[in-house]
């Protein structure tokens, strides 16, 4: 048992840390956020140059061959800077799914392009009526000529508005909630039959509602067998979200601590008031829990499916629960300043709370955990 980062992991951490520190001050981030695209393509190119876009991929494609801990290190750093670029959408959710399912030539083409920063992707998995259930897929794909055509609607597709290509989950067999019969496809975002309604999200990211109307699509891997790979990619996504939340919670705690040390009322810093001290301690305790569960999640990806599922559900649930407390207390202890758009902490709070709405919220993951309550890890 050893919680220390390896030398390579530490280097990765330093790379991301430096990038965020130097390249991502609040005003620069705000400029990118309020741009039409909602993030910076220059920054994306920097990610590529630093090798960050290759973290989870094989060295064959110029990648880093990283697993859970490596993605954790990257996402935690991104969380500290509230990074806006579509790393989760492109690299983690779409990229790894292509990596798990794609043919050698698909990988050769697409993964290399991802690693090189030449293409941005989005995973179109969830649907308007399906909430957080990734098996709720009513969208269908049918063979047509060499390829397929897809029909259906996809909901709140993270960075779906600016993606060059979409990885779409569609049904080639079975009915709406079946685990079997799901397939993954690559769809060109500019193709006929793809219509997108893009919008900003409350936490400053972008997403899109996507309608597919006989949209031409290229199958990834085998037909009907995408579920295991999809769940592996979503698991990576959950690790990344937990880590991002931990990073953001850390900064929210730091900002709040600094604020109560500096803000004077009644002639003393408000951090001298014991009631606020104890609440600050409780915030930090929530942060420690979030960090612990992020590590647990990051180190559980290679375990058996039920053990992995149980730990990830618990991790994401803790993030939802602890994140809410940290976000709300960060605002409250900042007083009126915490309500202001010009105060960085309000953006941290928004991102932390919205992470609970991505890839399953507290309620969803507690239900998963409840269904696995009797699982004995030692036996599994």
């Amino acid at each position, binding site marked *: 048992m050893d919680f220390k980062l390896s030398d390579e992991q530490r280097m990765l951490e330093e790379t991301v840390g430096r990038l965020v520190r130097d390249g991502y001050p609040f005003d620069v981030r705000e400029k990118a956020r309020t741009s039409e695209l909602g993030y910076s393509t220059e920054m994306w190119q920097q990610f590529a140059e630093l090798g960050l876009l290759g973290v989870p991929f094989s060295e064959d494609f110029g990648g880093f061959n990283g697993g859970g801990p490596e993605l954790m290190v990257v996402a935690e750093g991104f969380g500290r800077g509230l990074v806006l670029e579509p790393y989760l959408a492109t690299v983690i959710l779409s990229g790894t799914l292509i990596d798990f399912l794609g043919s050698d030539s698909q990988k050769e083409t697409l993964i290399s392009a991802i690693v090189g920063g030449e293409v941005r992707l989005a995973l179109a998995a*969830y649907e*308007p*009526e399906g*909430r*957080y*259930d990734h098996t709720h897929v009513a969208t269908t794909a049918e063979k047509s000529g060499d390829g397929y055509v897809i029909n259906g609607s996809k*909901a*709140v597709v993270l960075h779906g508005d600016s993606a060059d290509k979409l990885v779409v989950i569609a049904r080639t067999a079975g009915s709406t*909630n079946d685990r079997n019969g799901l397939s993954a496809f690559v769809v060109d975002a500019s193709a006929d039959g793809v219509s997108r*309604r893009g*919008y*900003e*999200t*409350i*936490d400053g*990211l972008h*997403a899109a*509602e996507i309608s597919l109307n006989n949209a031409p699509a290229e199958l990834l891997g085998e037909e009907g067998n995408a579920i295991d790979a999809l769940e592996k990619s979503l698991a990576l996504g959950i690790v990344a979200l937990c880590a991002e939340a931990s990073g953001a919670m850390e900064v929210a705690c730091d900002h709040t601590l600094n604020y109560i040390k500096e803000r*004077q*009322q*009644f*002639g003393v810093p*408000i951090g001298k008031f014991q*009631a*606020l001290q104890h609440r600050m301690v409780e915030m930090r305790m929530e942060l420690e829990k979030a960090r612990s569960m992020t590590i647990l999640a990051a180190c559980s990806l290679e375990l058996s499916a039920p053990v992995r599922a149980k730990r990830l559900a618990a991790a994401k649930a803790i993030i939802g629960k602890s994140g*809410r407390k940290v976000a*709300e207390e960060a*605002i*409250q202890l900042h*007083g*009126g300043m*915490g*309500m*202001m*758009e*010009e*105060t960085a902490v*309000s*953006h941290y*709070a*928004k991102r932390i*709370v*919205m992470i609970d*709405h*991505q890839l399953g*919220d*507290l*309620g969803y993951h*507690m*239900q998963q955990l409840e269904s696995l309550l009797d699982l004995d890890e030692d036996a599994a």
Partner: protein
Amino acid sequence: MDINYTPEELAFRDEVRAFLDEKLPKEIASKVKKNQHLGKEDTIRWQKILNEKGWMALHWPKEHGGTGWSPIQKHIFEEECAEYGAPTVLPFGVNMVAPVIIKFGTEEQKKTYLPSILNSDVWWCQGYSEPGAGSDLAGLKTKAVREGDHYVVNGQKTWTTLGQHADWIFCLVRTDPNAKKQEGISFLLIDMQTPGITVRPLITLDGEHEVNEVFFDDVKVPVENLVGEENKGWTCAKYLLTFERTGIAGVGQSKAALKHLKEVAGKVQQNGKPLIEDPLFRNRLADVEMELMALEMTNLRTVAAAQAGGVPGAESSFLKIMGTELRQEITDLFRRAAGPYAQPFLPETFEADYDGEMVGPDFANSVSTKYFNMRKLSIFGGSNEIQKNIIAKMILGL
């Protein structure tokens, strides 16, 4: 002991309901219920309707045009207004500065200011908080120096709600820099058109422009705009802050929100069933429901004590804390009900004239802005921490 309304009280409630049925513009109520933006004109339109009926000034004595209502009547009126989706009457004129003028002002001041407040012809805002003086209100630094027949005001106020629309502002200013903290403060009325005043918008985390900073740079204010005595403004300030606030518990708002939440949760589907049938969601709804019943009864106890002639004091701090926490909890449940659709942020959909397509279920468009906006409830109007300090001191003697 009887917790039910008397026949007279029920008759009064019917009268209020009839009025609201007839006079509350449907399009305004619809905006309130859909969390759409209310314009200044909506608020003024409604307030003028109230004034026509003589129901604008709940807390004024009858002689000045107030309703002369009992605490229970005020409570009934506010409950029903919330239930019907009437816009909140802006408190800055009618419920804040006016009572101070009535209590401490000259006859001349009463004649000058009260009628236009009653008829909503003048929009008031509040100049209390300063960047360095929030919870510690008496730490304010904005100063007014007497020069002949006017004061010269310099300084800055902040968190000035809806100051962007305001014609007048009432301000606490320091008139004696050498006096101890709470002494040497005066209460001034200032025309926002006076040269030297700048209003800078503050955008809140939900993207809204509700509050402002107001800067005073050599602003000349006639001495007749002083309310009460010079250097005795703290008396006015305290009077205003502790002024009876029957609505502080927000029971009506929470009831309306909970009702809406139940409707929504009955429609949203999860795993092929309405969300309201999800055991955990239902449990949290039940928890809110029972907390709301407790809040309502606690509020009624306070109202009844006021009716019996008691002076509501620090008890209203309990109501502030319980009421705001509950309203915030309901916004949390709304965002959970929206699921992934809590994320989209489309400010254009908050406008009543928006006729485009929505993203996700209709109710979802405002859940997150509301959730974040409502964080203010526990901060502004005396933060909940300050309320606890008040209770600890005034009720518990700690």
